[in-house]
Every structure is written in structure tokens, then in C-alpha cells.
């Protein structure tokens, strides 16, 4: 390991932080241009001009936007996300549990989905253009093409209603044992797995097939290695960068894109939390959740970049 790689990695991280700052400005600006402000949302039909003015004063909505932005940013940097306007609860506390739930679900979905997708991709390459390849691609693409809610309902219908092997709703709470939690999230994790499977599998297949065209693979084949050994030893390590990229993208999706699955399975995660507060125009919560989603996305992308750098000798040893 040499210093250029450290420099590259440091650059990526710095860029990521800069990007996150830019996103925070965007989020703040975005929530400012939403129609109606939070005072109006809280008071609803019973709003009178006086009560609106009072509440705006109380919530500090009368200050200029940039002052409120720096105030907010300062809070975020010190771990204080503020209090939810609609319920008066501390946002950081409520989010912690929700975020943990979302990560728990994403983690288990990933544990199943990533090895499965890569293995299926490798098998598809090994038997490329044969019926195994076509079957794998067909099933994976079909499961991705169906909307998430449809897959979710199908799973619920067979596994919860008809056979009652798993619960139809995935409410998790404190005091549940680890096993109970796993059983509760089995169906949403399965639904998520089916949704992200095809993308990763197809990318694995494509990336390896790409490498399979190279001269050194031909050499390996000529020196008599079996097809599996060629893929395992020569093709896969060289195709790892694009695979990591697509895996990270899907990981990010598992965290930030699960709103529909959370709603169907009544899973108390970030998505449901965000939806509830958007309808209430609860700006501080929407900002906080937006920022966390952005941070997850950017972090995973940095990890993907760094992994690609580390895995790629050409980037590791630039001329």
C-alpha cells in the first residue's frame, strides 16, 4: 500500500463530506419551498391569523432562512436534531430506534441477497446461454419486474394467511427475542431480496463475462483449467470492482428505498416515520430523515469507490 492510494481515499472522503453539505443545503431549501408552513399544518382548519402568528413566533419561523439553516446545521453537527413539531418528541431519540430497525432489516436482507445474487451470477456464467442461465435470469428479472407491493402481498398470502408459517405483520419492539425478531422480518426481508436480486445477479454475470473475453482467460483455459476454476481464480477477482459498485447501490436501496415494503408489512422503520411526518409538514423531522438517507447513500458510494480503488491495480498503481 502506498501513499497515492491514501491520498485518493482521503480525496473521496473529503468530496463526500462536501457533497453531504451541499445536500443539506438542498434539503433545507427544498423543505422551505413546500406549500404551507408547519404552523398552518399544525393548526389545520382551526387556524386564525392570530393563532398562526403566535405559533410562528413560538416555533421561530419568523427568522430569515439562512439563520435557521446555520442554526439547524450546528445542531445536527452536535447530534441535536431538534424536536418534532407535531408531537414535541426528541427527533434523535425517535430516529435512533427507527434507524436501527431499518438497518436490521436491510442487514438481513443483504446477508441473504448478496451471496445469493453473486453465486447465481457465477452459476449463470458457468452455464451461460444454457437453460440454467436462462432460468436464473428469467426468474430473477421477473421478481424484480413485479412491483414490491405485489411481491409483498403474494408472500403474505402464501406464508402468512394460507400456511401461517410467518406473521403477516412485522411489528418489532423492545423485549422481543432475537429469534422472534428474525421470524417477524422473514417476509419483508424475502420481499426485499427478490427486489434487489436481479440487478446484482445480472451485473455479476455481465462483469464476469466481460473479463472472460480477455486474453489471460483464454490462456487459463488453454492451460487446461476447468471452467469453474477459471471463473473463480481469474475472472471473478478482476470483475470485483463493478460488482462491489452494484452491491453498494443495492445496499443503499435497502436502507432508503424500503418505504413501500415497510408500509405493507407494518414495519416500524425510517420510511414509515418519514411518510407520517411529511403528511404533517413536520419540517425538522423531514430534514433529519432526508439528511440521514443522504448520508447513507453517500457513505455507501464512498465505500464502493474506495473498494474499487483498492481492488483495481491500475488505480492502486497509477502511472
Amino acid at each position: 500500500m502506498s501513499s497515492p492510494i491514501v491520498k485518493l481515499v482521503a480525496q473521496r472522503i473529503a468530496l463526500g463530506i462536501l457533497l453531504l453539505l451541499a445536500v443539506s443545503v438542498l434539503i433545507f431549501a427544498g423543505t422551505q419551498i413546500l406549500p404551507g408552513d408547519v404552523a398552518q399544518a399544525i393548526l389545520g382548519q382551526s387556524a386564525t391569523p392570530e393563532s398562526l402568528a403566535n405559533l410562528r413566533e413560538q416555533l421561530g419561523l419568523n427568522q430569515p432562512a439562512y439563520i435557521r439553516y446555520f442554526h439547524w446545521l450546528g445542531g445536527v453537527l452536535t447530534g441535536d436534531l431538534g424536536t418534532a413539531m407535531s408531537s414535541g418528541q426528541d427527533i434523535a431519540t425517535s430516529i435512533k430506534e427507527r434507524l436501527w430497525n431499518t438497518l436490521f432489516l436491510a442487514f438481513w436482507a443483504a446477508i441473504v441477497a448478496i451471496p445469493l445474487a453473486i453465486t447465481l451470477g457465477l452459476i449463470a456464467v458457468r452455464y451461460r446461454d444454457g437453460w440454467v442461465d436462462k432460468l436464473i435470469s428469467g426468474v430473477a428479472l421477473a421478481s424484480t419486474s413485479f412491483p414490491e407491493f405485489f411481491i409483498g402481498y403474494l408472500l403474505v398470502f402464501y406464508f402468512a394467511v394460507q400456511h401461517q408459517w410467518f406473521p403477516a405483520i412485522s411489528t418489532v419492539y423492545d423485549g422481543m427475542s432475537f429469534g422472534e425478531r428474525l421470524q417477524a422480518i422473514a417476509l419483508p426481508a424475502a420481499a426485499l431480496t427478490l427486489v434487489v436480486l436481479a440487478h446484482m445477479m445480472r451485473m455479476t454475470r455481465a462483469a464476469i463475462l466481460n473479463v472472460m473475453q480477455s486474453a489471460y482467460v483464454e490462456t487459463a483455459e488453454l492451460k487446461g483449467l476447468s471452467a469453474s476454476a477459471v471463473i473463480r481464480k481469474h475472472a471473478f477477482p478482476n470483475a470485483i470492482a463493478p460488482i462491489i459498485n452494484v452491491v453498494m447501490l443495492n445496499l443503499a436501496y435497502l436502507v432508503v428505498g424500503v418505504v413501500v415494503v415497510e408500509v405493507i408489512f407494518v414495519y416500524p422503520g425510517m420510511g414509515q416515520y418519514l411518510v407520517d411526518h411529511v403528511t404533517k409538514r413536520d419540517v425538522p423531522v423531514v430534514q433529519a430523515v432526508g439528511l440521514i438517507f443522504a448520508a447513507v447513500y453517500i457513505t455507501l458510494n464512498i465505500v464502493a469507490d474506495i473498494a474499487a480503488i483498492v481492488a483495481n491495480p491500475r488505480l492502486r498503481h497509477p502511472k
Partner: protein
Amino acid sequence: MTNELDYLSRRVAAGKLSRRDFLGRAAALGVAAPFANSLLASAARAAGPVKGGILKAGLVGGESTNSLDPALFMTQVPFAFGKMWGELIVELSPDGKLENRIAEEIGSSDDAKVWTLKIRDGIEFHNGKTVTAEDVAATLERHSDEKSKSGALGYMKGIDTIKVNGKEVVLTLKEPNADLPYLLSDYHLIVQPNGGKDKADAGIGAGPYKVKVNQPGVRHGGERFANYWQGDKMGHADQIEIIVINDATARTAALQGGQVNMINRVEPKVVDLIKRVPGVTIRNHSGPGHYVFIMHCNTAPFDNNDLRMALKLAIDREEMLKKVLRGYGSLGNDFPINASYPLFTEIEQRKYDPDKAKFHYKKSGHDGTVLLRTSDVAFPGAVDASQLFQQSAAKAGIKIELKREPGDGYWNEVWNKQPFCASYWGGRSTQDQMYSTAYLSTADWNDTRFKRPDFDKMVLAARAELDEAKRKQMYHEMAVMVRDEGGLILPMFNQFIDATGPKVAGWVEDPHQELCNGYALAKCWLEA
């Protein structure tokens, strides 16, 4: 035969005969299954509730923004959970009468202006303190304060002074109101220690269950309160749990899968499917809720009573009830009151009559189309209902143009602003409340702009009238006036449709709100 059935049903209740065997033998005796089932239910009730176990409900209407402060209750989940941990001063009983709770006696002066609530002895809060007259007075004070943002503020403003006199709370009203006890049954008015002035969302009340878990938008749990003052009547299960399931399909699946024992808001279109699931019972009951099309009486072209009458006659109520509610409702008659209100009187049912509608339409002199705004959020099936209205009106030569509005903002931008739109009302507990909320000239929510000084006078006179027969007559006249001259087209009253899973017993039909007026978890039990 009856004796034998009675004997058999008692054996089932005692657990000595299975339900299936009972139904088989009842059939052998020539008894139809529904009747046999009802026999069984009454035997189970006679055998007494089974104590213990966990009862779970999967309900729509909870958000992560919910609070335990009763003043802020709006949706179904806080409403139902509040009935578990809180106790009210007075409640409406399932037969429409008043049931005294924390108040042992409620009396009034002859002019219905001064009311005295005598507080019952020996009721205890979950924190061990005894419920006193001071607590009740403080609760009422807090809900009368603008700052509490209480959902009951509208009525509470009518109270002038609240005084404590030993074990009594004395309320002096600004205007006489014979319905005050009904107003006090509002679900927001949960009596809290010191009225909740110290900590409004502490979740400490005097109800049958103590708050154990409070995760807004996810799950609420309660544990039986050993010192509940009427533990023989309510609080049978050891623990209760409300799981928030806002998705209708997930709710149904959870009931079928056995994760919950009861759900609310079954969609009319799936009721017939769910009925067939073994063990599931549909619990539907009519209430005061209704679906409406509202016209502003002061805005052209709806300022013409002939046009309003034409539209009222041009709606096919029977068809709408059948197709939109699948029969789970009852016909509306263009005034907002039905048999679930005290002092209700029947008025001749208005029917679909294209010829008469044509006549009134011609007489109104209106030409061209009438713009009706509708949206999915106006009521379930509102868009379909609007289309049916459009077709039935077309047969009478009236052209209705539909405009579908987005759900977001419908209640701010369309309802109570545009002259003709679809909407719904949940109803109120008394006729006075309903008319005062939406038909007084001065009411904020007068969404038909029905501004008639003579009607206002009748509302105030009826409110102060203590003679029931006279009041009934007054309400009859008011209803006729709204029906024949108002801006309300009320094709149907909807029903509450709940469902329970296997072994749930003790369900009480209650016309006031869904889930036995919110008490289902406390009143029901699981059969052994």
C-alpha cells in the same frame, strides 16, 4: 327443544362441548346456524367473561406523531387507546342513554344553565391517587383553555365558570344547554390527575388498563389495572395491545393469520370475501356517519332552491348504497340525523325521481353544466359515487361535470371553499351538536352555507328546552327545513365495519363509534 338447546349451549359455555358439535346438534334439532350461534353467544355472556390472556387489535388511524395528551386526540388509534387507559365523566351507553362514570349523578337547574356533577367515591388513578372533584374541574378547565388546543374546545367554550363544592363540580354555562351531559361524554375529556396540567401526556388515567407500551404509530400496550372501579364489567384480558396497521390488506391478513383478534375499517368491497374465512366474524353496525355532496346555498347557481331540489331528486340513493357501500349502510334523506341519535323522528324517504328533477331543473332556469368536485379522500368510493350521480342526473337532463381533485389539500382547498363537492361527516352524539357544528349561520364548518336566522333561533330554543316531547317536535321541524331547503345531498349513512377473529366474545353493538365505541378491547374476552 328450547330446553335441550339451552342445556347444550350452557355445556359449550362451560367448555364441555365443542362449538362444532353444538352447531351439529342444533342443526339436528332443526335450528338454523345463525340462530344457534346467537344462542351460543348469549350463553357465553351468561356464563360470564373469561379473565386472562392477551387481546390484540390491528387498527388503522395511528401515526408516529400521536401523543398521549387526550386534548390532541384526532384519529382512531389514540381514541381507542384513550378509552383503555382513561375514564370519562359520563359516557354514552350502547342503547343511546347516558351512563354515569366518574360522575355519580348529574343534575341541572330548571333553566339548564347551572349543572352539578357529583363525583363518585372510590375511583382510583393508576398512580394510586383518588379521583377528586378538583381533578375533574381541572380537566374541564384545561380543555376550556385555548392553549390546550383541545379537540373539545368548541363545546367547552360554552362553559362560563367551573367551581368545586366539596364532592361536587358546579358548571355555569353562558347559554342554557340541555345536552351538556352528552357534551361531557366527548372522548377528549379523559379525567387526569390535576386535569393533566402538570404533564398532559403522562398517560395516567382511571381506566381499565395501565399504559405499558406507548410507541406512537407502531404499538400501544396496556396491563390490567387491578383497582379499576368496575372491573366486573370491563378489563377482562390481562393485557391488551393495539398494533397500528394502516394498510387495509395488511390488516385483513393479520386477522386471518391470527396476529390480532380484531380489526377496524374493513373495506365494504372485501367484506363478502372475509366473511367466508373460518372463525372470522364481521361486526357491522350503523352509526351517525354519512357521505355527502354539499352545495353552497349562497353561491350561484346553488342559491336557487329549485336547482338544489333538482339535484337532490336526481341522485339514485338505492343504487349508490348497493354499489358503493355494498349494502353496508342505510339510505340518507338529505338531513344529517338518523336513528342513532336521541329524539330522532322519521321523515318520508326521498327517492330518485328523474321527472320531478327535470321539472325543478327547468323551473330553476339554470342552463349548462354543474361542476362537482370529488376526490378519493372525500369518502371511500367517492369518485365512483360521483360518477353514479353524474349518470343518474344525466337521465333527468342535468349535466354534471366532474372534476377530480388531488387528495393532498382537498380539506384545505376544496371542502368548505368550493360551492359543490363530495365530503363526509363522522356525526356527533346529539342533534344539537350536529346542527351547531355545521348548520348554524355562525358555524365555521357550515359547509353548505345554510344561513337562516329562523333556523338559528330554532337551534338555540331546542338546546334550552328540557321537555323531551317539545324538543322532539322542534328537531323534526329543523330536519324538514334542512331536507327541503338546505344545501345538503345525503345519499347514504355508512356503517362501521369491524371484524373479529376466532373465540372473541362479549362484543357489544354500539351505534356511537366503531369497535364498541372504542371499548372493544376492554369489553371483549377470549373464550377458552
